[in-house]
């Protein structure tokens, strides 16, 4: 009983599992190059380029965890995900 | 007997007039000699569905009325010397952000804690220049309760018309004295309501773009238009800017909207001015004694008159100069060390004609005091 997950967690888990990356959009004009997204990305997807702007280096490793988007102080990152349902209709 | 005839303290009259003018929100903090205004509003406002709040200090009181005014309410606070000093910063905010509000300062003796229960008119220049930066301000005053009523209503009307704070500068004598007052019937004194924008929702609204006549139609906070309000120099949408052209334009606008309307804002009363050789200039409670002296001396055939100022700021320099042109002596009667005296000297030609009759000891200036000073001026001794 103790370990029964709450229903919303189950739902979240299902969605998380099925989410796939469509695109990581980085607004270069807004990015100030603090490297927070680079450092805290669990899949090392992002890097900073010569102009100190975040760039997507390994999109295939993205787990769509959204950590970069949520922690970006410049509101410069948007992780666009695709749910299988949407893809089917799209 | 008429129901509207009352025997009230000046502070009570101010409350009655504020309600007449449509006061909806009051925030304040107790301080002598203005406290009765807060006490009375704590009783009256909730009974009429209005809002009364006692804040933690005068700073917060002033800030709270500005916030409430933005949402479209007619607002007021009341205080005295030390509290008025605390309000200066937010007074500047209301000037900069063009937010209508009325601040009553029932003057007491200063500086500092001074004489809480003693009369003084020492805040005339503070009312003008207490907050920092170039700015314009409207300051009204009154010498009797009928005028307290009228000036209080006018204070609200001018605040709403020019989107600016208006200071009602009363004094301890006026605030605490009881005398007869006739409360006007509804409609007897015009009440100005806020000019609101006619711009429809979804259309770009410029809260800080003055019309050709200098007036700014407002949109209530919480209404259909979302905008920014700041104490920084701002553009026509209200957003901060350091653009010299916009800074210049806004500072000019804030000053011009008052300066260009002196004739509308100025209020003064004159008694026997036309042939007067000696003109007394006074305001507030001092003007009562001055008027008494004028009546007494006129009865004896002396050519003396009184110019009673009701608008202290913007100071009516031109009007005072015109009225005083033919006078041999101009005697400013006030309870300070010559704050209005300075303005009158600036206003008139041959400023050597201007003299001061004052008291600064926390005691009300009496007709005898003025008479003695006039005798000294005329070389007759006391």
């Amino acid at each position, binding site marked *: 009983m103790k370990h029964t997950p709450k229903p919303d967690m189950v739902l979240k888990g299902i969605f998380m599992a099925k989410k796939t990356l469509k695109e990581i959009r980085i607004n270069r004009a807004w990015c*100030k190059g603090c490297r927070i997204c680079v450092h805290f990305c669990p899949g090392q997807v992002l890097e900073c380029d010569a102009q100190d702007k975040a760039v997507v280096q390994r999109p295939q490793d993205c787990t769509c965890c959204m950590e970069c988007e949520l922690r970006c*102080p410049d509101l410069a990152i948007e992780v666009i995900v695709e749910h299988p349902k949407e893809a089917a209709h799209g | 007997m008429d129901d509207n005839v009352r025997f009230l303290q000046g502070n009570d009259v101010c409350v009655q007039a504020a309600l007449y003018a449509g006061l909806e929100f009051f925030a304040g903090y107790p301080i002598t000699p203005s406290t009765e205004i807060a006490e009375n509003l704590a009783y009256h406002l909730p009974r009429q569905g209005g809002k009364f709040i006692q804040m933690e200090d005068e700073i917060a009181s002033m800030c709270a009325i500005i916030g409430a005014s933005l949402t479209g309410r007619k607002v007021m606070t009341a205080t005295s010397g030390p509290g008025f000093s605390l309000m200066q910063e937010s007074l500047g905010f209301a000037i900069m952000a063009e937010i209508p509000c009325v601040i009553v300062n029932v003057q007491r003796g200063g500086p500092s804690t001074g004489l809480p229960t003693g009369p003084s008119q020492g805040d005339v220049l503070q009312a003008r220049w207490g907050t920092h930066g170039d700015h314009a301000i409207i300051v009204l005053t009154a010498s009797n309760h009928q005028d307290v009523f009228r000036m209080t209503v006018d204070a609200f009307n001018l605040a709403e018309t020019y989107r600016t704070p208006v200071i009602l500068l009363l004094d301890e004598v006026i605030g605490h004295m009881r005398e007869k007052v006739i409360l006007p019937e509804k409609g007897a004194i015009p009440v100005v309501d806020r000019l609101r924008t006619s711009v429809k929702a979804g259309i770009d609204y410029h809260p800080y773009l003055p019309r050709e006549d200098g007036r700014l139609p407002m949109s209530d906070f919480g209404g259909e238009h979302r905008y920014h309000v700041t104490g920084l120099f701002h553009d026509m949408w209200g957003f901060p800017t350091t653009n010299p052209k916009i800074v210049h334009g806004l500072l000019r606008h804030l000053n011009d909207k008052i300066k260009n309307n002196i004739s509308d804002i100025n209020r003064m009363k004159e008694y026997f001015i036309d042939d007067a050789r000696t003109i007394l200039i006074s305001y507030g409670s001092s003007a009562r004694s001055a008027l008494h002296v004028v009546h007494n001396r006129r009865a004896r055939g002396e050519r003396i008159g009184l110019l009673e100022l009701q608008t202290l700021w913007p100071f009516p320099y031109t009007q005072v100069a015109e009225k005083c042109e033919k006078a041999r002596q101009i005697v400013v009667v006030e309870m300070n060390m010559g704050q209005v005296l300075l303005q009158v000297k600036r206003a008139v030609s041959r400023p050597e004609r201007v003299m001061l009759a004052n008291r600064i000891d926390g005691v009300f200036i009496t007709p005898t005091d003025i008479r003695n000073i006039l005798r000294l001026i005329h070389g007759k001794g006391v």
Partner: protein
Amino acid sequence: MAVQDYIRKRFFPHLWCQGCGHGIVLNSLIRAIEELGIRKNDLVMVSGIGCSSRITGYVDVHTLHTLHGRALAFATGVKMSRPELRVIVPMGDGDALAIGGNHFIHSARRNIDMTALVMNNQIYGMTGGQFSPLSGPGVKATTAPFGNIDHGFDVVKLATAAGASFVARTTTYHVHQMISILKEAISHKGFSVVEIMSQCPTYFGRKNKLGGAVDMLDYFKSHTTAKGSDAHKKDPLMIERGIFVKEDRPEYCSDYDMLVKELQLKGDA
């Protein structure tokens, strides 16, 4: 509505420094507002002066950028006048608790329905790095060149003692927690206080040799722990995060309205 619809894009990139925690607060705040589905016209944000207070310029709601320390007093006027509006008051640590300390405790005491955010970066950033009432002893600042001897407030304890009916703490590292706490705080009926530990790499970080924004976020990660956790029991110096107070208490504006209704029922009005 998309998250980005809540911001005034024409003012971006914002004025905050590289890696400033206040941007993360803005990021979480608009997500919380969006997830709660609050209409932009129903929301008022009131701020004071400082780096933190510039947040109001970026959010597309009714925004009032006031005086240093006075945001809560202005907000009290807005809320009392129009209780149906939601009011959020983002403040800096000096703004909220030095110059604005009196308004802070009295707003808490009144339990007036608004959400006070203390964006705590332990420093005055806008003026160039002076110590604040949340810096604490030992901290280096331009006005404490030999180390600060001034003790800091504990915002959570202060707000609790003053009577706030919702009190929480989180950090800019813990963005999921921040969003969920902000949602609860904004939904709470009464005075809610959320302390958000936020990094100032430019002044606090540099002065105190804490590294850049990344290092400072790592510090929040390693030096804070969930409220009541074992980690905190083992090491009481670990700063606790979470919701510390959440109580239903009479709210000021509702009580005032009740008073007005009672007077009207008595026919006294």
